[in-house]
C-alpha cells in the first residue's frame, strides 16, 4: 500500500479490490438544509476483513460520512454502494441489517428501559422470535463482557459500560460492517483498552469489518489496517498507518498531530541520527528499534566506527 492522494478534479473514485469491497462511497456529497457542507466529493471504501480508521479533526465530516453508511443520510450528490446495492437508487431499506452504527454518545443510544431490552431491540426488528432475540442479546452481551449488566437500567451505567452495551446492541444483529464514531473518547484508560481489544476481536473473531472515526491517532496506529485522512468533508489521503503517520506534512495538513510513538522516533532520529527509513508505529516496534540503533550522542561518537 502506498499513500494515495485524492485528486479533487477527478470525478470518479477508483475501486480498491471490487471482489472484496463491502462499501464504496463514490464521490458523494451531502449538504445540510441550512447550507453547511457535511461531506464533499467524498471517496471512500471498506474491504472485507479490514479495520479502517477515519482520522480528522472535529467537524471534518467523519460523523456525516458514518451516517451515510447505513442510510440515515442520503448523499445529495454522488452514490454509495453497500454490498453491491446503491443507496441512491432507493435501495436503502434494510441497510441497517448490514451496517451497524455506534454513535459517539452512548447515553443517547440506549433508549429501552433495561439493558436486555435495549440489546434485544435490533434482533426483534430483524424479525426474530422473542426467545431467539433474548438468546442473541445475551450472547452479544457475553461477547462484549457485559453479561452481568443484562437486568440493569442504562441510566445508571458508567460511560464505559454504556459503550459496551451499545456495541452489544449492534453485535446482536450480526451485521457485516460496524461503524463507530469516536469509540474511546471520554473513557478512562482501562475502559479504552477494553473497547480497543473488542474492536480487534470484531474483525478476527467475528469477521466483521470495522470503520472507526477518531482523532486518537495512537489508537488508530495500533488497530487500523488503513488510515483515511479526512478534511473539509473529503478523504484527502490514505494509506497504511506506517506510511501516513510518518508523513508529517500530511498529518499537519489534516489538522492532527503524529502519534506519540512516531514523534518519539522522529525526534530521536533528528537528535541522535537514527535510521529514518525505519518506521515503528507501535511501542514494541519502537523499543526494539531503539535497542538496535544506538544514537550518536556526543559521548557516544568516539565509539562509532
Amino acid at each position, binding site marked *: 500500500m502506498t499513500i494515495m492522494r485524492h485528486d479533487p478534479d477527478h470525478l470518479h473514485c477508483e475501486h480498491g479490490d471490487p471482489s472484496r469491497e463491502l462499501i464504496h462511497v463514490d464521490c458523494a456529497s451531502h449538504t445540510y*438544509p*441550512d*447550507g*453547511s457542507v457535511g461531506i464533499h466529493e467524498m471517496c471512500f471504501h471498506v474491504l472485507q476483513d479490514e479495520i479502517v480508521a477515519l482520522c480528522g479533526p472535529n467537524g471534518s465530516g467523519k460523523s456525516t460520512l458514518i*451516517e451515510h453508511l*447505513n442510510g*440515515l443520510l*442520503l448523499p445529495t450528490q454522488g452514490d454509495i454502494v453497500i454490498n453491491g446495492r446503491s443507496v441512491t437508487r432507493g435501495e436503502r431499506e434494510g441497510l*441497517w*441489517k448490514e451496517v*451497524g*452504527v455506534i*454513535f459517539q*454518545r452512548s*447515553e*443517547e*443510544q*440506549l*433508549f*429501552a*428501559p433495561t439493558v436486555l431490552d435495549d440489546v434485544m*431491540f*435490533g434482533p*426483534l*426488528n*430483524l424479525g426474530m422470535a422473542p426467545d431467539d432475540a433474548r438468546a442473541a442479546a445475551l450472547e452479544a452481551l457475553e461477547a462484549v463482557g457485559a453479561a452481568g449488566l443484562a437486568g440493569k437500567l442504562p*441510566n445508571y451505567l458508567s460511560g464505559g459500560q454504556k459503550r459496551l452495551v451499545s456495541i452489544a*446492541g*449492534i453485535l446482536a*444483529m450480526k451485521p457485516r460492517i460496524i461503524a463507530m464514531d469516536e469509540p474511546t473518547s471520554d473513557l478512562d484508560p482501562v475502559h479504552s483498552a477494553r473497547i480497543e481489544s473488542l474492536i480487534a476481536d470484531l474483525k478476527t473473531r467475528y469477521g466483521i469489518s470495522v470503520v472507526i472515526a477518531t482523532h486518537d491517532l495512537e489508537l488508530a496506529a495500533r488497530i487500523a489496517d488503513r488510515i483515511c485522512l479526512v478534511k473539509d468533508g473529503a478523504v484527502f489521503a490514505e494509506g497504511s498507518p506506517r506510511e501516513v503517520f510518518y508523513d508529517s506534512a500530511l498529518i499537519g495538513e489534516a489538522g492532527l498531530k503524529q502519534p506519540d510513538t512516531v514523534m518519539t522516533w522522529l525526534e530521536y532520529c533528528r537528535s541522535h541520527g537514527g535510521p529514518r527509513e525505519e518506521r515503528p508505529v507501535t511501542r514494541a516496534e519502537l523499543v526494539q528499534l531503539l535497542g538496535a540503533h544506538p544514537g550518536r550522542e556526543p559521548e557516544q561518537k568516539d565509539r562509532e566506527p
Partner: protein
Amino acid sequence: MSPSMISEHIPDLDLITSCAERQDSVFSRASPWTKLILLILVVLVITLTANLLVLSAIYIGILVSCFAAGLPMRKIIAWYAMPVIFVLSLVGILAWTEPGIALISIPLGGFVLTLTDQGVLLVVTLLLKALISVTFSLFFLMTTKYAHFSAMVSRIFPSPLDQVFLLAYRFLFLTLAMAASLLKAVRSRGGGLIRSIRVQGRLFAGIFGLVFIRSFERAERVEKAMAARGYNGSLSAHTKIPAPGIAGYFLICAGCSAVLLLLWISPHAAGGW
C-alpha cells in the same frame, strides 16, 4: 415512513436560526423593534378587517418581502401544514352550516350538509388571516439575529419569565439534537417499521421519557455551571438593538393610521367593509 421522524411540516428552529444569522438583506438590517411593532400592527389589522382585498394585499406584500429577503419559500410553504389544519378543523366544520347561497349539499343520514358561498368565504378569509400571521412571524424570526431577539426578550419580559425564555431558547437546540440522535439510534437498528401499536407506543414513550430525563439532568448541570459563576436569577442579553430608521418610523406610522382607521370605521360597518 418518512426518512426523518423529525417532522418536515413543523418549522425547524435550527434552520430558522441559521437563516437569520446568515441573512444580510435590507430586512435583516432593519431594526428588530420596527419588525416587532409591525407584527403587532399586522395582527391588529387582520383582527379588525375581513375585507378580502385588503387581506390579499397584505399577504402578497409579506410574500414579496420574504422572497426579496431570500428566505426558503418551499420550506415556508411546507410549514403551513399545521396552521392550515388548525384553521380547517375549526372553521371547516362551522362553515357547513353558514347561511347563504348553497353550493354543495351532502345528505348525511337525517341531515343535509350544505356548503354556501358565505361558508366558503369564511374559510378563505380565516385561512388568509392565519397565513398572514404565520408568514410575517416566520419572516420576523428569519430576518432577526438571535442576539437581537434575545436582547428583546431580556427587555420585554419580567423576571423570572425572561430567564426561562432565554435558557429554554438556548437549550432548545441541544434538546432537538438529543431527540434527533435518539431517533437515529432507533432507525439505525431497524426501528420505526410499524409492527404493533404496543411496541411502537412503548418505544416512543421510552424516547420521550428519556428526553425529559436527560433534560432534567442537563438542567441540574447547567444550574451548577451557573451557580459556579454566581447566578442570582439575572441572566441577561446585552447586545445593542438598533433603533428604527426613518423608513421604519414611516411604516410604523402608516400601520398605526391603518389600525386607527379600521377602529374608527368598524362600528359603522358591521361585518367588515
